[in-house]
């Protein structure tokens, strides 16, 4: 035993490989977190470039740039890359970096698996993106891969399905790791109801991942056998049912939506108290609200398919269940505002992005309530109104929260302050243009423009033009984000351990930059140092 321990110690603090090997073989949560974040940033630009192809074609009526088939490949790949390549890995990267530091753990519970979860991703995405260069082209049936359309495509479907399997394996391993870390490695005194909200939301998200990624895997495997091995799960001519796929897919798909937003809720719940210099309002109710959203996410899936032909009773059930989600979501928004209320607010870049999140996510949430109303949904469904809705919750929701998190913790990661002036400029630039990009899409949808079309009737020209201008300005503006990060990594004003005046929590007790190994000796969390003491009275 003692030899094993000493070997472990050597491994831990000596023999740290350098160069490429350092990154390939790293089992350190901070290095793996960095890898995830860089990977996600690259994918954000890959997916963004595809979005710009879409917006360029939609700049004016008529087909100017691409064939409709390629346009469909772009919409499909844009979604797959952004969801599985940009947003999800970014949250996993943030969890890797911050969860151990926030609960006072020395590392993730399963460091080797952590390495593997990351290194699967570049292979998965190489396979996915390689389909663009295959003779039959990339998948073009939308990211939902609805049969029978998805089965019409070429053999590249097999690559897409295997890439999805790899991403699923990676996500499930990441989720197991996060659950094991949070449940087993909290510092003494860090009880569950003292954990930071970001840790709570990730714990719940990890359970969602484990519950639904296998469902997606099942659905796409059935597609695979239908396409290549002659089964008829979704082929009506063979006794199958194309609608069955949609039910299975959205049983994964709706919790997936919350997988992409719950950690964002956690981030915002860290940032707003810091810059309001006031504890998070209603901590316990925030935890319960998150758990209720997670539960409800399993019983609303069919609201994605109201027009598919369902019994009246089913439509009513899914409508009511969907509307109920507004309640815990509302609680969160009210709690954030109550946190700001009578605080002492300052508006550094992370706070700006968090406030932008609250406003714009709320807009997306409110249009979500509208979409739940079935008779109106018959009009909204599959139009640009839906496109506007989910981009408000995903771009100004999830992506804004990720950017807020990066600005918030960047000084902790690099040891330097980023350029605050540029950061603020980045926020205002992004906020203005993202609204120019997505707000007019509400009007387009209400006026009758379906989604996923490469060309449109001329009455939709003006708002498409405005939207495309917004898209290009927003997209190119993100290069500034890369510059700010690069500049901050290279140098700048030295950051203190606490970084932000109002910041509280264990991650701010270690020096900036955080040394490779933190909390080798667990800190003691007692009533005096615990951030959250809230109890329902």
């Amino acid at each position, binding site marked *: 035993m003692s030899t094993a321990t000493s070997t472990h110690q050597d491994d831990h603090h000596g023999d740290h490989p350098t160069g490429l090997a350092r990154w390939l073989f790293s089992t350190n949560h901070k290095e793996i977190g960095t890898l995830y974040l860089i990977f996600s940033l690259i994918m954000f630009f890959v997916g963004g470039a595809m979005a710009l192809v879409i917006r360029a074609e939609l700049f004016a009526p008529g087909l100017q740039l691409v064939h409709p*088939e390629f346009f469909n490949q772009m919409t499909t790949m844009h979604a797959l890359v952004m969801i599985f390549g940009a947003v999800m890995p970014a949250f996993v990267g943030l969890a890797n970096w911050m969860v151990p530091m926030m609960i006072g753990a020395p590392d993730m519970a399963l460091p080797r698996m952590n390495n593997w979860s990351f290194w699967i991703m570049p292979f998965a995405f190489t396979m996915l993106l390689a389909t663009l260069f295959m003779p039959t082209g990339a998948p073009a049936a939308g990211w939902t891969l609805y049969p029978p359309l998805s089965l019409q495509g070429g053999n590249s479907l097999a690559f897409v399905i295997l890439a999805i399997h790899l991403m699923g394996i990676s996500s499930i391993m990441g989720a197991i790791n996060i659950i094991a870390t949070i449940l087993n490695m909290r510092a003494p005194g860090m009880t569950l109801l003292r954990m930071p909200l970001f840790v709570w939301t990730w714990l719940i998200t990890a359970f969602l991942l484990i519950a639904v990624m296998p469902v997606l895997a099942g659905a796409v495997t059935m597609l695979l056998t239908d396409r290549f091995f002659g089964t008829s799960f979704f082929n009506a001519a063979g006794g199958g049912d194309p609608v069955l796929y949609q039910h299975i897919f959205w049983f994964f798909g709706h919790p997936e939506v919350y997988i992409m937003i719950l950690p964002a809720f956690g981030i915002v719940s860290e940032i707003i108290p810091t810059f309001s210099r006031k504890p998070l309002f209603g901590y316990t109710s925030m935890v319960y609200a998150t758990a209720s959203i997670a539960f409800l996410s399993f019983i609303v899936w069919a609201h994605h398919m109201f027009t598919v*032909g369902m019994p009246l009773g089913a439509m009513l059930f899914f409508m009511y269940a969907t509307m109920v989600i507004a309640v815990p979501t509302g609680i969160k928004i009210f709690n954030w505002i109550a946190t700001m*209320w009578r605080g002492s607010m300052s508006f550094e870049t992370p706070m700006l992005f968090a406030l932008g999140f609250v406003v714009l996510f709320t807009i997306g949430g409110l249009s979500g309530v509208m979409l739940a109303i079935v*008779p109106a949904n018959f*009009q909204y469904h599959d139009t640009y109104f839906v496109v506007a809705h989910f981009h408000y919750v995903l771009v100004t929701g999830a992506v804004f929260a990720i950017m807020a998190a990066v600005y918030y913790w960047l000084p902790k990661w690099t040891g330097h302050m980023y350029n605050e002036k540029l950061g603020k400029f980045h926020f205002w630039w992004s906020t203005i243009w993202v609204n120019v990009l997505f707000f007019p899409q509400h009007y387009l949808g209400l006026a009758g423009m379906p989604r996923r079309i490469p060309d449109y009737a001329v009455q939709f020209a003006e708002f498409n033009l405005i939207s495309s201008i917004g898209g290009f300005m927003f997209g190119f503006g993100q290069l500034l984000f890369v510059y700010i990060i690069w500049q901050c990594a290279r140098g700048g004003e030295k950051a203190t351990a606490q970084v932000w005046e109002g910041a509280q929590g264990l991650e701010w007790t270690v020096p900036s930059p955080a040394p490779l190994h933190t909390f080798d000796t667990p800190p003691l969390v007692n009533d005096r140092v615990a951030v959250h003491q809230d109890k329902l009275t």
Partner: protein
Amino acid sequence: MKRTNELIVGLAVLAVISVITWGIFAVGDNMTPGVSIYSGDVFQLHNTVLGIVTIIGVLVFTAMFTSIVVHRRSKGHDAAGFSHSTKAEIIWTAIPVLILVVMSVPATRVLIDMERTGGADMNIKITGYQWLWQYEYIEEDISFYSALERDSNRARQLGSGVNPREVDNYLLDVDNPLVVPVGTRIRFLLTSDDVIHSWWVPDLGWKRDAVPGMVNEAWTLIEEEGTYRGQCAELCGADHGFMPIVVEAVSQEEFAAWVAEQREEMAQTAHDAARLWTREELMNHGSRVYQAQCASCHQSDGSGLEPAFPALVSNGVPSGDLKSQLQTVLHGREGTAMDGFRDRLQPQDIAAALTFARNAWNDEGTEGEIIQPASIAELDQG
């Protein structure tokens, strides 16, 4: 003092946000009230819910921005220490629940109305194809296909050089519109022959998916005469954006006249299928059929779009022998986007399109084959 501050700032913020919200509504488009018996209810429901969520949004943002203006450190505002209030949590749980209940009542009522599909005066079966619609009037025994109109189809080709603004109803016009009488309770039966489509005319107040192997129901009763346009709303492949829907709602008398006219045409069609056609007739008719049915994949010059859509000519010579080409046209090719046209087109359409495709780009100057409508069935058999 502090409370007055919050109140005054709050009112000012409310005013600003209200003006911005008014502006947002003033510049944009809204849903159509439509022309069917319940599309107005859907519109009203949409407006009610939109109104409610707008008010919620305005109030939430007012509270937030009031705090942002008043409670800032740069103004020397010190942070209060409170961090929970069970009373507040109960209030902002209960109020949203009540609002949702208020919204769900009209939503449920309208939905039940829309789903009551019985008691129809006439039934129309709609079948989606890649990428056109088939309409079958079950009582009248009339059936036809409805595809993107030629001018739009030509203008929408990549690099066509035609300005879409100069095409009437660009992308929203068809060759054969769906003609229906007003004031009649019509039940639609929707299905698909290939992939999932979705039949949507905003003025009727709904869309409904056309799913292969399944028959969906929906109904309408149009109250105003007019032409109403819509599109396929479910991604169905390359030309998803190019399968519009046009509904012409006419008076009962006009509808009866239209039915009689259709009957006459059907008799003519049956006659045409049996008679002998000249080469010129076949080429002229074939050019029309080809442009409407084949050109979106195989291109107007037969060059195709490799690899998904093969070329029909290689070096000016039709690729493949007539028999195998006919088999493909009639029965489609499994595992590809090529569908069988046997049920979709008349024998004279198939004969003409084949004649056209085998002769139009034949540089060799040889007399290509001409195919007679009457011989299609025979060629198919053996």
